[in-house]
Structures are given as structure tokens and as C-alpha cells.
């Protein structure tokens, strides 16, 4: 198998990054920035799986390849990078540090795509590190104190993660006797190496308590960067676990337990932390943390019960895609929202944002709902002890996400993110809408896209509405409560009853006005009528009129046509003595 496709796929971002350092080519590079992952995408979409290539010659031997799993990752990651690139092109147009951003962006992209294609531990580690460190630049980009702090935190965790990963990979390689990932997967790794690997990847995933870096970083990075950070890059942690850990072959009950517990804590703790955030992107960051908790549940279950892994992994992939697209859409939407200047267009964007938000929250029949249901089903095969808890946690995670999404929607209105000064409002809309549409369409296309691993999703029930509803209701309640808190209970109550009072007052006023008018009329009309009647002596006229009327009425009724007014013969009508009148004298 030729290495060429891989060179094309990975060389394109690399080449562009290099070109970007050349001033003359910059504008061209920026123009094609959205298409940087295109070759990788094409490879993933068109290539026959599995396909591998190696360049033993490069460094310690570079093994690249794609299989059914990584291919899917490439697809949604690439898509997201495309959209982010398109956004970045406009976002960075007037940025003085655009070049450095572009380079870092492309490098991170290279790392991301590369690690998905890596087939050996070292290249994997390298791409992984490339991605992580390049991202540092993205996080740092704005150079604000906030960004600096976030970056500092970020880099600290990255370092920690890289160290753990490195140690883990090293140990694993030692135990497996090979650095090929396939070998690692088949080896029963020692507990410690698995633990180290888990730490490394969990830092990337942001599983608690290793999550601290994530929200600030996602909040601080520019919109296109945070979209890929949250959508694409953190999935590298998942991908790493799936490809490196010996899941499905060996049981690591303790690890699984820890991971699952952490996941569960993460789901809800992220909620608690997230709702306190004022920066909408930070809220989204916590939402990502929370969502990764869900993934952790699946991973943990897989660690605990290897038999269940086969059922779990397709779902995890789906969930990753789902989260990547939805969260990416949300981040891009945040940018799109920030780019809007008018209230109406903001409202429209908010409405559009509701779709990915609800998808994320797990609206039935959306990717969120399906994914969660599928996960539940898959987890059914795992530990029966944990199952009810998992089910509950998954369901409640819908509530949690809904709450976070509500918080997010509230916050983009309260603290609108800043957009670059001269950004055309409509420029960044297209990527956002594209990713949103992709997110919505995911359940529909997944079948054709994923083929072999799509079955659990196809079979999953559409999911329940109540978590979302609960979340909405709770959010509304909380909003009301917060509103009340802010303005004081008394004021709030009066606000609450204001419509009633207003209605009552209005009704009263209308009635009063009507009554006044009626009274005026009621006084003036009879007065005028009465006076006129007196003055014109209409009563007299009425006498005559009434006689005429009575005559007419009586003639009309008692004299039908055949009755003669001039009877020919008039009989004396009655006998003169009438006994009925004098019944008893």
C-alpha cells in the first residue's frame, strides 16, 4: 500500500503551514485554509478499509493506516476542521497574529489527523503531542490575562498528560514487545501502564478531576479554535483509549470502576460548575466535560467487562461524532452569534443554536437521544450492579445538559462573546449552519457512513423526552428563581402578578370608561329626548298616533279580507237578557 495518500493527507496542512510563513502566499493559504483537511477526508471517505502504510525509514518507523474506527473519526474531525478553517479565515482576517494562529491551527490539525492515522505508539504520541502543544498557541492566542492564565493551566495539564501518556506508552510497549498499536491492543497490559495511559487520555478528555484546564481553555481560545478543541481534539483521548488500551480482551475492574465513578461525578459536577459560569464558551466547555463523562461511563464499563466492549465501542464512536458535531456547531454558533449586530438576527441565530443544543441534550430521535439509548442498551451487557445507576445517570445527564444549554443560551445573551471588529455578520454563518445541519443529519447518514458499526444506533430506540423537558422546566424555574433573587422576592411577586393586575386594572378602566360614557349618554339622551318631547308636545301627537296605530292594528288583524267593513245585514248580536253576567242575584 502506498504511502502517498497519507503524504497527501498529512502533507496538505503541513505544506500550508509552511507556506503561511511566506508572506506572499499568505492570502492564498488563508483562502484554502478550509480545504486543508480535504485530502484526509477524501482518503477516509473513498479509501478501502483497512488500509495501512509504513515508512520504516522515517524516525523509528512510521506506521500509518486507517480502519473502520479511525476512518469515522477522521471524517467528523475533518469536517469540523473544515468548518473551523472556514470560520478562522474570516475571524482572523484583521488579526495581527493571524499568521501565528494559522500556523498553530494547521499544526494542530496535522497532529489531530495524524494521530488518527498513526499505527504505532511513537507516531501516535508524536502527533498527539504536536496537537496538544500547537493548541497551546491557539489557547494563548488573544494574550489577554485570562487567556494567559488558561494557557498556563492548559499547558500544565498537557505536560502532565503527555508525561503520563508517554510513561504509559513506554511501559505498554515494553510489555507488548512492540510499539505497533495493534500489538498493544492485544497485550494484557499491566495495571500501572493502563492507569498511566488512562490518566494521559483522561486529561485530554477532561474527565474529573483532570478537567480543570478544559473550560478556561475552551473559553479563552478564539471561536474557530475552541470549536476544534472541543469538537475534535478532545476526542483524541477517546480515540487513544479505544486504539491503545486492550479493551475487550482484558478486564481492569478497578480502573473501570474508577473511570465510571469519575465519569458519573463528571457528568453532574460539570453541571454544577458549568451553571456558575458567565462566559458562554466556558459553559460549553463544562458541557463538554459533562459529555465526556458519558463517554467515560462507556469506557469504564468496557474496562470492567471486556465482553461488553464489542457492543459499547460502536456507540462510543457514534457519541463522539455526535458530540463533535453538536458541540462544534455550538461553538461556531457562538461565533456566529457574536458576529451578529442586530437583535433580530441574534434571535434567529439563537433559534438556530437551539437545534444543536437540543441535539446535545438528547432530544428523542436526534443523535443525542439515539446515542444515549444505544449506550444504555450496550451497557446492559455490562455490570448488572452498575446498570441501574448508569441508566439513571444517563437519563439525568439529559437533564444536566439541558440545564447547561439553557445556561449557555442565557449567557450568550447576558455576556455576548466578542467578535473581531470588522467581521461581516453573515461570513461565519455558513460553517455554523453546515455543522448544525450535519449534526442534525447524523442519525440519518450514520447508517451508510459507519456501515459495520452502525447497527446499535439503527436499533436504538429514539429516547425519552422527559429529561429534556425536566431540564427545560428546571431551567425555567431556575431562571425565574434567579430573576427573583436578583430583583428581590417582593418585586418579583409583584412582577408575577403584574399581568393579572394589569388585566384587572385594564378591565376596570375599560368598564369605568364605558360606564362613564354610558352614563354621559344615559344622561344626555333622555334629557334631550324628554325636553324635545315636552317642547314639541309629542305626547299630544302620540295620542293621535296611537289611535291611528290601534285602528290600523285592529283592522289588520280582526278584519281579514273577506270580512266586510260594511256588512249588508246587521243582526242584533245578543239576546237582551244575558245570564252570564248576573250569575247569582
Amino acid at each position, binding site marked *: 500500500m502506498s504511502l502517498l495518500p497519507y503524504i497527501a493527507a498529512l502533507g496538505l496542512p503541513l505544506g500550508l503551514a509552511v507556506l503561511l510563513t511566506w508572506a506572499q502566499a499568505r492570502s492564498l493559504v488563508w483562502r484554502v485554509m478550509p480545504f486543508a483537511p480535504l485530502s484526509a477526508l477524501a482518503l477516509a471517505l473513498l479509501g478501502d478499509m483497512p488500509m495501512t502504510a509504513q515508512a520504516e525509514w522515517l524516525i523509528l518507523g512510521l506506521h500509518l493506516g486507517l480502519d473502520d474506527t479511525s476512518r469515522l473519526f477522521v471524517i467528523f474531525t475533518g469536517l469540523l476542521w473544515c468548518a473551523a478553517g472556514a470560520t478562522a479565515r474570516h475571524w482572523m482576517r484583521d488579526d495581527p497574529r493571524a499568521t501565528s494562529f494559522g500556523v498553530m491551527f494547521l499544526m494542530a490539525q496535522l497532529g489531530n489527523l495524524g494521530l488518527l492515522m498513526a499505527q504505532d505508539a511513537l507516531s501516535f504520541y508524536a502527533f498527539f503531542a504536536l496537537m496538544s502543544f500547537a493548541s497551546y498557541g491557539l489557547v494563548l492566542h488573544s494574550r489577554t490575562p485570562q487567556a494567559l492564565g488558561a494557557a498556563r493551566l492548559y499547558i500544565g495539564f498537557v505536560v502532565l498528560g503527555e508525561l503520563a501518556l508517554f510513561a504509559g506508552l513506554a511501559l505498554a510497549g515494553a510489555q507488548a514487545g512492540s510499539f505497533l498499536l495493534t500489538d498493544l491492543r492485544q497485550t494484557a497490559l499491566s495495571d500501572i501502564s493502563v492507569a498511566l495511559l488512562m490518566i494521559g487520555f483522561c486529561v485530554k478528555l477532561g474527565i474529573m478531576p483532570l478537567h480543570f484546564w478544559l473550560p478556561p481553555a475552551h473559553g479563552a481560545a478564539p471561536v474557530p479554535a475552541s470549536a476544534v478543541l472541543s469538537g475534535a481534539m478532545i476526542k483524541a483521548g477517546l480515540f487513544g483509549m479505544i486504539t491503545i488500551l486492550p479493551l475487550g480482551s482484558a478486564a481492569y475492574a478497578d480502573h473501570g470502576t474508577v473511570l465510571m465513578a469519575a465519569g458519573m461525578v463528571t457528568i453532574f459536577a460539570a453541571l454544577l460548575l458549568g451553571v456558575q459560569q458567565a462566559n458562554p464558551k466556558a459553559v460549553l466547555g463544562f458541557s463538554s466535560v459533562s459529555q465526556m463523562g458519558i463517554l467515560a461511563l462507556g469506557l469504564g464499563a468496557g474496562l470492567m467487562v471486556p465482553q461488553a466492549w464489542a457492543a459499547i465501542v460502536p456507540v462510543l464512536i457514534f457519541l463522539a461524532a455526535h458530540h463533535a458535531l453538536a458541540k462544534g456547531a455550538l461553538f461556531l454558533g457562538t461565533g456566529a452569534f457574536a458576529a451578529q449586530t442586530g437583535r433580530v438576527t441574534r434571535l434567529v441565530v439563537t433559534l438556530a443554536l437551539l437545534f444543536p443544543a437540543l441535539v446535545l441534550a438528547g432530544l428523542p430521535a436526534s443523535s443525542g437521544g439515539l446515542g444515549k439509548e444505544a449506550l444504555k442498551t450496550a451497557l446492559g451487557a455490562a455490570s448488572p450492579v452498575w446498570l441501574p445507576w448508569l441508566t439513571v445517570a444517563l437519563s439525568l445527564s439529559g437533564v444536566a445538559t439541558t440545564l447547561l444549554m439553557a445556561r449557555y443560551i442565557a449567557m450568550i445573551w447576558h455576556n455576548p462573546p466578542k467578535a473581531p471588529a470588522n467581521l461581516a455578520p453573515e461570513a461565519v454563518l455558513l460553517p455554523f449552519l453546515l455543522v448544525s445541519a450535519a449534526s442534525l443529519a447524523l442519525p440519518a447518514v450514520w447508517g451508510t457512513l459507519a456501515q459495520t458499526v452502525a447497527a446499535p444506533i439503527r436499533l436504538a430506540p429514539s429516547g425519552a423526552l422527559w429529561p429534556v423537558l425536566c431540564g427545560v422546566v428546571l431551567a425555567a424555574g431556575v431562571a425565574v428563581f434567579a430573576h427573583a433573587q436578583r430583583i428581590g422576592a417582593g418585586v418579583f411577586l409583584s412582577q408575577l402578578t403584574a399581568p393579572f393586575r394589569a388585566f384587572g386594572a385594564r378591565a376596570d378602566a375599560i368598564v369605568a370608561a364605558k360606564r362613564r360614557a354610558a352614563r354621559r349618554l344615559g344622561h344626555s339622551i333622555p334629557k334631550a329626548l324628554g325636553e324635545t318631547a315636552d317642547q314639541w308636545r309629542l305626547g299630544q301627537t302620540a295620542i293621535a298616533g296611537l289611535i291611528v296605530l290601534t*285602528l290600523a292594528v285592529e283592522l289588520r288583524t280582526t278584519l281579514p279580507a273577506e270580512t266586510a267593513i260594511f256588512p249588508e245585514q246587521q243582526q242584533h248580536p*245578543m239576546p237582551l237578557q244575558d245570564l252570564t253576567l248576573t250569575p247569582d242575584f
Partner: protein
Amino acid sequence: MSVEISPMILSVFVPLFGAIAAFVLPRAAALIGFATLVLTSGAVAWLARDVLAAGAVGLPLGGWGAPLGIDLRADGLSVAMLALTSVVGFLVSIAALDSLKGPEQARQRQYFWPLWLLLLTGMNGVYLSTDIFNLYVMIEVIALAAVGLTVLSGSRAALQAGLDYMYASIFGALLFLMGVGFVYLQLGRLDFAGLTGAAPTGALIAALALIFVGLALKTALFPLHFWLPAAHANATAPASALLSGLVVKAALYVVLRLAQYMPFPSENLLTLVGLMGAGAVIWGGVQALRAERLKLLVAWSTVAQIGLIFVAFARAGEVGLSESWKAAALLILAHGIAKAAMFLAAGRIKDEIGHDVIRDLDRTPIRPTLAQFTFALAAISLIGLPPSLGFIGKWSLMEGAMAAGYWHWVGVTMAGTLLSVAYFSRVFAGFLRFDRVRAPVGEHQGWALADAAPLTLALMAIGLGLLAAPVLSFIEIGYPFGVAP
């Protein structure tokens, strides 16, 4: 030789002799008048006993018998009217004793009694008559005496009102007389029995129209009410009570009677009557709402109430006439009693506080509480709240209308009731508001004899409602309208 005297002739002649005596002996007029009322009431009670015992009774005066002679006849309805007249008259007389006792009213006192007793003669005559020409003469007796009572105070307003009343009265009587002429022309006789079953011809239709309009004018049925408010509002209190409570009822009674004998109050004519009544209910109510003086308000309420009586009469059309008259009769009785009470109470209020401007009723520290209470009680009956007689009348009205499907009359009645609530509550508000009074509000001063008569009347108006069933069965004695109940 023993003189055999019928109570019927007595109930006409006793007041007549009383009037003569009161006129000849002005100093003793009050005493004579009072004694006459007692005796007349006795005669009526005697007659009522006879009627209860024997059903309708008749008396062919001169022994000739109708149609040549004139018959008197008393059935339940006539005795009920006689009783109404006696009772109300008696109580108004008591009130008059008090209200005319001042030295400055010597002249009024001197003429009040003869006129009132002549009025009584006329009314009792109407209720016993069975001859339409005799009715004409009786109506004229009533008219002259009533005009005399109207102008008793001698004020210019009263005189103007009295003159207008006089014109209307004469006019109405003349229309009636012309109608009598046509009846004679067609039938050759004038007794009620002769009217029964007569075929409708042009002459009789003309007679009907003339007589009906003449009576409508006399009873002040809208739109022929123009003379009434001023006349009743400007008369002295006892006179107002008599005029409003009793006099208009005489003409109303004749309408009822003629409807009993005249062969053709057709459906359309009844509709016309009902419409006029509805007009009266509305117009009278509206005018009462904007009346500025208490007595004027009460007078307008009379217009409305008379309208209501006619609505009751027309409530179920031609077919229902044999029942509708009872509702009308009940309302006549109710209104007679209550309105007399109300006018007397209004007079008492005016006497006590010195004016009867509704707007200023709440500015006076003097509160004739008993008179006000009486006024309120009378208003309850006039509005038609249970258990008053007015309520029973209204109940009968609406029941019949409903059963016959004449919903519009139900609507009119309800509208009239609401209007009456509205205009009477204006007065109540004046009675009960205290915050605009400058001086300390006077308390109830104890019982005043002058309040006894109106209070009794008002209590009767309320309490008779509980006795409606016997009253109803009484007026059915002799089967007016020929239908056994």
C-alpha cells in the same frame, strides 16, 4: 219598613254622603272623612264576605236590569280593587290627618276631605260598574276630584301640572265617550254583557281604539305619560299617594274589565300594548335615573310600573289572556300599596329635612330613619324582591311569558328590575351616607305616629306576598275572563 241595603250601593254612597257632609261641615271634615273611611271599609268588608260566600253578586239598580237599567256587579277582582282602595285610602287618610294638621294647612284640610271622598266615590263606582257609559261618568268624577287634589298645595308648579292633567283627563274621557257612541251605534246597548261575543265591525274597532287610547291616556301608559310625573311629583304627599297608588289603577282596572268583555284584544294589539309597556318600563326607569327630586323619581317609577303592568297583561298573548290578567291584577295591587307607602314616606322625608333633592339627601344631619326605612321597604316591593307582593306579581308575569315562549317580555321585566334597582339605590345611598354631613348625625328620634301609616302600607306590600295564594284565589272569584282556575 225596613230598609234593605246592599253593601255594593253602600260602598259608593257612604263616601258620597261623607263627601257631602265633609263639604258642608268643613270644621269637622277630618273627623267625617275618617269616619267615612271606616264605614266604607266596613261596607267593603261586608261585600267581601258576601262575595266569598256566594261568588260574584249583582245589583240591578232601580230594578230594571241591564241593558235598560244599570247593574252593579262585584266579583273577586272588583272586591280586591275595592279593598285595595279602602285599605290604602284608610292609611293615607291617617297619614293625611298628620300631614295636614298645621294651621297653615287649614284650607287644604278643608278641601282635601271632600275631594278625597268624592274620589273614593268615583273609584268605588268604577269597580262596581258594568255599564260603559256609567264608567264614563265615574271616570269624570275621579278626574275632577283628582285634579282638585293635585293642585291642593296651590303652588304654581302644581297648578300647571294640574292643568295638564286636566286636559289629558278630559281628552281621555272624551275619547272614551266617542268610543261609547260607536258602541251604541253598533250594538244598541252599553252594558258589558252586550259586548260579549260581538262580531268585530268597523264601529266596534273604532270604539276599541278610542276607548283604549282614552284609558291609556288616563292611566299614563307610555307614550301618553307626559302629564303624570309633574302631577304626581308636585301634589302634596297624601294626594300623591292617592293619585299614584289608586287613581291610575281605576283606568287600569277598566282596561282589564273591557279586555274581559270586549271580544277582540287581538294578538297584535296585545303586542302593541306590551311594547308600550316596555317603552314605559325603559323610559320611566331612565328618567327616574336622572330625576333630581325624590318625588319626581317616585313619579317616574310609577310610569315604569304601569308599563310593567301592561307588559304583564300582554305577557302571553291572546291565548294567555285568561291567565295574564291575574299577573296584572297582582301587580296592580302590589303597586297600589307600595307606591302609596313610598309617596307618603317621601313626603315624610321632605317634611322632616325640608327638601327632597336627591343629591343633597346625604348632606343633612337629620335622618328620618323610619320614613327612610319605609321608603326602602316600599322600594323592595316595587323592585320586586321576594317575598313582596311585587315579587309575586313579577313572578307570575315572567312565568307566564316564559311558559308561552315570549322571552322578550321576560327580558323587559329583567331590564326594568335592574333599572329600578339602579334608581332606587341612588336614594338609598343618600340615606346611608354620613361622611358629608357637617353636624353630628341625628339619631333615630323614636316612633312618630306619622310614620305608622306608610310603614304599615310598606309592610303590607312585603307581607302580602306571603298571602299571594289566597289573594289570587280571591280575585278569581266570579271567574273574570270566564275561565275557572
